[in-house]
C-alpha cells in the first residue's frame, strides 16, 4: 500500500525472482541475462550464499536467541578472516603492537562484533536483499553491490568487499550507504590509541564488553 509513495528505483527485482531465474538458468545451462550478468562472479555468489544463510538463521523460528547467535557467530567466523579485518582496523598501529597486544586485540575485536550483532538481532524486521553487481577492484578484491530492503523504509545500498585469499573468499569490509565499517572503526581505534595508547584501546574494548550496569 505504500507503493505510490515508494522512492526506490533502478533494477527492482525481489530475491525470489533472482533465485527463480538462477534456477532456470542452471536448468537451461546458461547464464541469466539482464538480472545478473554479474552473479556468476564467485564473489557475488559468495555474498548471495552468505545472505541466504544469514536470512535462514534469522527466519528459523525454532531457534531461540542463544542458538541463533551461535549460528550467526559460526557463519561469521567462516565467512570472514577476523585476524585480517582486525589488522586493517588497527592500521599502522598493528606494526607497533606487541604479539600479546595483537592477539588480545583480535579476540576483543571478535567479541565486540558478536555483541554488536546480538544488539542488532532485536531490530531485525523482515529485511531482504538483492545482489545487484560485482566489480573487481584489483587482483584480490571484489566489491559486491547489494540493496537491502526494509519494510516501510527506503532501501539501503550496501557494498561488500570480498578478498580472494588464494582461493578462499572472505568478507573484509561492509560499506553501508558509502560508510565503510573498516574506515569508521579505524578512525575510532586511531583516536583512542592516539590518546591513550594500544593498552588504552584494549582497556576501552574490555570496558565495552562488560555487561551494562
Amino acid at each position, binding site marked *: 500500500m505504500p507503493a505510490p*509513495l515508494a522512492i526506490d528505483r533502478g533494477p527492482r527485482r525481489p530475491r525470489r525472482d533472482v533465485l527463480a531465474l538462477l534456477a532456470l538458468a542452471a536448468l537451461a545451462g546458461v547464464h541469466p541475462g539482464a538480472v545478473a550478468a554479474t552473479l556468476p562472479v564467485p564473489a557475488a555468489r559468495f555474498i548471495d550464499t552468505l545472505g541466504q544463510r544469514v536470512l535462514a538463521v534469522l527466519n528459523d523460528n525454532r531457534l531461540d536467541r542463544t542458538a541463533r547467535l551461535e549460528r550467526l557467530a559460526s557463519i561469521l567466523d567462516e565467512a570472514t578472516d577476523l585476524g585480517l579485518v582486525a589488522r586493517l582496523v588497527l592500521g599502522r598501529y598493528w*606494526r607497533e603492537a606487541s604479539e600479546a597486544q595483537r592477539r588480545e586485540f583480535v579476540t576483543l575485536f571478535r567479541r565486540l562484533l558478536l555483541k554488536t550483532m546480538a544488539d542488532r538481532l532485536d531490530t531485525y524486521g523482515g529485511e531482504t536483499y538483492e545482489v545487484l553487481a560485482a566489480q573487481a577492484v584489483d587482483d584480490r578484491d571484489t566489491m559486491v553491490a547489494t540493496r537491502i530492503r526494509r519494510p516501510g523504509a527506503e532501501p539501503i545500498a550496501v557494498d561488500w568487499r570480498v578478498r580472494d585469499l588464494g582461493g578462499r573468499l572472505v568478507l573484509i569490509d561492509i560499506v553501508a550507504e*558509502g560508510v565503510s565499517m573498516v574506515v569508521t*572503526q579505524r578512525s575510532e581505534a586511531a583516536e583512542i590509541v592516539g590518546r591513550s595508547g594500544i593498552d588504552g584501546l584494549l582497556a576501552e574494548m574490555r570496558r565495552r564488553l562488560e555487561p551494562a550496569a
Partner: protein
Amino acid sequence: MRTSVSHNRLIGVALSTLLAAPLPAAAAEVADPLEPINRTIFGLNELVDVMLLGPVAQAYGELPSPVRTGVRNVLDNLRAPVTFVNDLLQGETDRAGNTFARLFINSTIGIFGLFDLASEFGYPKHREDFGQTLAVWGVRDGAFLMLPLLGPSTVRDAAGWVVDTAAIDPIGQLAGSEVGLARAAGEAVDTRQRLDPVVQDVRRNSLDPYATVRSAYLQRRAVEIRNGRPAAGERNYEAIFREENDNAGAAGD
C-alpha cells in the same frame, strides 16, 4: 569574572589546538584541530537528543509509515529549489533538469509534494547543497566542526549551509521565518527518526561515538560530493586495503 576567565581559557585552547594542528586520524582525511570544543558541543547535542529530539522522533516513528513517507516527500520537495540551483552551479544540467521535473511533477499532481510521483516516472531524487557545490569547485573541507544542534560539519560545509539558508533557499524568505522554522524542525525530527537504529547502534557499540560520527559524516559527504559513486577505487579507501600487504607477513594470528 569567572565566566570571562573560562571564556579566555576556551579561546586559548582553541588557538593552541589550531596552532598545534594534530595529525588527522589515520583514516580521516580532514583535520580536527578544534576537537576539544567539538567534543563538548557533541556532548551538549547528545544531551538535547536524549532529552528532546530523540523522544520526539520516537513518537513520530509511531505514525504509520505512509504518513511519514508523505512528510518526507513534502520536505524533499521544499528542498528541491536549493538542489536545483546547486545542480546548475555545479554545471550538472541533466541533474538540474531532473530536479526541475521533480519539482514540477510533485508540486502539481503530487499534491504539494505529498506523493513522489516523479520517482515513479523515472526522475529519481537526489540532494545537493552549496557545501557540495564548493567541493565541486575545488574548495577543501577545512577543519571538522561540530555545530550546536546542527551536528557534524566542516568549515566548508558550514559556509555552504549559510549560503543555502540565507541566499539560495526561497522557502525561508518567501514564506516567512515561521515556515522556515517549522520546516527545520520537521527535517530534524524526520532525519533523526530515520537514523534511529544507527544512533542506538553507535551509542551502544562504538568505542568512541564522537570519532564514529565524524568519520561517518566525512564518508557520507564524500559519497554525496561524488554523486553516489561508491568508495571502491577511491585512493584513500584503496590505500587501506593495499597497506595490509606490507605488514601481512608480520601478522601473527
